[in-house]
């Protein structure tokens, strides 16, 4: 074969290589050929929701499609949300809309310039104020501009128990910390394991801490701590952690602390509400109900074998503030179709459909109580709506790396409470640096 015959082959290779380089360099933005919202070029949505939360959301999307004729493609169940979304942004290929589980991340992405501001897209402050309370609007506001609004809300200030078991043993539902400790001790004295804990997922520990802290140090200090103006080595933090470890220790937790650290969140639910329970109490958000009924044990009877109660009061001065979580809707690509979907998702109409599934609680204040299908979610919705003091999940407010780091710090705390001062000062060093960025 002569050289001249090789040249075309080589040229093809070179063109192919340069095409690959070019396509990775520029990435595909929203396609301009097909109309957005058509079957070929649907509105793209990326969410971390799976299971019942996914089904509920897709029910809302189908209603939107039926109403507008626009198609929405929901890429769902992305559990490890952060790596996926950051990769997609860096590749220039973000979804049009997404659900961001942490306001801290929303703020990071907004400041990096990745998110679109919502006000110019028709989602104004006054419009949102009709549907959401100020606390929720603030969560989606970064440096005075709106970048997101709440899609769903959770109460995280609840613990779960079996009313039948309580009745049989003659326990009253504890409303104060002292009563909670008393119930814990009674279970222990009866030769039972009081608590289950899914500490392999470290956010279960940050939720424990937040509930104890907001009740011992007060909502103001809570806001300052997670806002970066109160150091983590403040004595109030160590005190709250010691209070927390007076219940979360080898004595009272199923499998001991090491067992808890090897147990994931859902497996922890299984230890209390599974077919062969080995513990009696579980502290985690309102979403436990849906998972327990849907995934862990369908035989549970709400109100009889599973029920929730508000996290007890510790210091009467601070009462029972609500620690809540929530996911925010945010936008990467602005177009008229996306605007329509935004307005729909924030409407009470969508909220009604959403909550009718029993999977979530809506932060939309115009969604009525009667729209909730069962006892467990109605109780949660009531708690969220009726909270006098509301504080957002603090670890989700922390910027960048800190939320994850705080979780692993708490994993170390429960293993060795005597290390608390050392661990807190190390964490504070990191926090100071991170808040400065």
């Amino acid at each position, binding site marked *: 074969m002569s050289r001249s015959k090789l040249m075309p082959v080589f040229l093809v290779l070179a063109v192919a*290589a340069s095409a690959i380089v070019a396509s990775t360099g520029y990435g595909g933005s929203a396609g301009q050929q097909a109309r957005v919202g058509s079957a070929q070029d649907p509105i793209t949505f990326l969410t971390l929701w799976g299971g019942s939360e996914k089904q509920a959301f897709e029910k809302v999307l189908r209603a939107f499609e039926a109403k507008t004729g626009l198609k929405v493609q929901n890429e769902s169940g992305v559990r490890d949300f952060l790596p996926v979304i950051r990769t997609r942004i860096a590749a220039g290929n973000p979804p049009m809309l997404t659900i961001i589980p942490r306001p801290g991340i929303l703020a990071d992405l907004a400041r990096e310039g990745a998110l679109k501001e919502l006000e110019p897209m028709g989602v104004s402050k006054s419009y949102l104020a009709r549907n959401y309370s100020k606390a929720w609007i603030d969560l989606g506001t970064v440096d005075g501009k709106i970048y997101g609004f709440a899609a769903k809300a959770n109460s995280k200030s609840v613990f779960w128990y079996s009313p039948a078991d309580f009745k049989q043993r003659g326990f009253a539902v504890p409303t104060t910390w002292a009563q909670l400790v008393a119930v814990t001790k009674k279970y222990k004295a009866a030769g039972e394991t009081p608590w289950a804990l899914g500490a392999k997922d470290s956010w279960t520990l940050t939720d424990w801490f937040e509930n104890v802290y907001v009740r011992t140090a007060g909502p103001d200090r809570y806001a300052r701590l997670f806002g970066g103006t109160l150091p983590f080595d403040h004595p109030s933090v160590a005190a709250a952690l010691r209070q927390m470890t007076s219940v979360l220790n080898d004595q009272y937790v199923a499998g001991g602390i090491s*067992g808890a650290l090897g147990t994931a969140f859902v*497996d922890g639910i299984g230890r209390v509400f599974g077919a062969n329970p080995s513990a009696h109490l579980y502290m985690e958000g309102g979403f436990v109900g849906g998972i327990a009924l849907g995934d862990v044990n369908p035989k549970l009877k709400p109100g009889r074998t599973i029920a929730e109660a508000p996290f007890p009061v510790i210091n009467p001065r601070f009462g029972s503030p609500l620690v809540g979580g929530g996911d925010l809707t945010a936008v990467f690509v602005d177009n008229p179709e996306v605007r329509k979907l935004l307005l729909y998702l924030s409407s009470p109409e969508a909220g009604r459909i959403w909550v009718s599934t029993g999977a979530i609680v809506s932060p939309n204040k115009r969604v009525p109580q009667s729209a909730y299908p069962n006892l467990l979610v109605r109780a949660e919705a009531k708690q969220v709506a009726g909270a006098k003091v509301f504080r957002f999940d603090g670890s989700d407010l922390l910027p960048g790396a800190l939320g994850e780091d705080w979780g692993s710090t708490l994993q170390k705390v429960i293993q060795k409470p005597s290390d608390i001062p050392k661990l807190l000062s190390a964490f504070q060093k990191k926090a100071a640096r991170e808040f400065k960025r």
Partner: protein
Amino acid sequence: MTQGPVPISVAEAPTRLGRLSAVAPREAAQGVVFILPAIVILATFLVYPVIWTTRLSFYRGRGLGFEGYLGFDNYKELFTEDPSFLDYHRFPPQGAVINNLKWMILYTGLCLVFGLALAVLAGRVRYERLVKAVVFVPMAISATAVGVIWLFVYSPDPKIGILNAVGEGVAGVEPISWVGREDTVNYAIIVAYVWFSAGFAMVVLSAALKGIPAEIVEAARVDGAGEWKIFRRILVPMISLPVAVVTVWLVINVIKVFDIVYIMTRGGPGASSRVIGYSMVFETFTNGRGGYGAAIAVVMLLLIVPIMLLNIRRFRSERVSG
């Protein structure tokens, strides 16, 4: 018929650049054309990313862009202020680097020992193929599934975890939370990964053993050598090259290990089971610190380079002796 180029015989092949001038310019140009596609592909997918990553490691790198120049700060933080990466203020030292070291010794060692033992022993039984198939099957499972399977095995709840069920039922010991304890978690993951890859070592070494001429072993037997002596003095030396190849493969596996740690523990509890690869992904994507993650990637690359060099040198010496 067109006149094709005269093929260059192997003996004449230029081994040093100096000799290139001796080759006719036309032939040299042809040589360049032949290797150009490979060069283009390597440059695009290997050289360019390496340079890009190295450059990124000197920046803060939000959104994986060259943003916020930091100089060597990322490296300084990595080696002096990040206890989850390297903590030499405690004894014994801890952190992802130390965990990788544990992996290097235990994983590589166990895979080789099991692989070799199984290769030798399986060769002596009638159901050899069955044994080999059983040991090799985990290789066909994705590492993700391996992680999930072993999470069930290790579950601290004896109603789920077979290991604790056996421990409690047979020996009457309290359930041990294998992946929930800082002192056991690394070994637990390593064992799972050995289960995953010992089969590969076994297959390669078994093939190598089969390649040893039977006469040599017979001659040794005639000379009165025992089985152990044959194994140590004849079999092992004769398969030293395949052993080296497998070792290199295992060591590279260790340096880049990520998947099974991610599935089984996410580097926890605390940060006690992080490895370098996990730290890189965690810092880059979960924490959004592109520059810091790139610095970890560069460290990883530097760790792999000497092993690659060793391997290349070995191949060269093989060619000379062969």
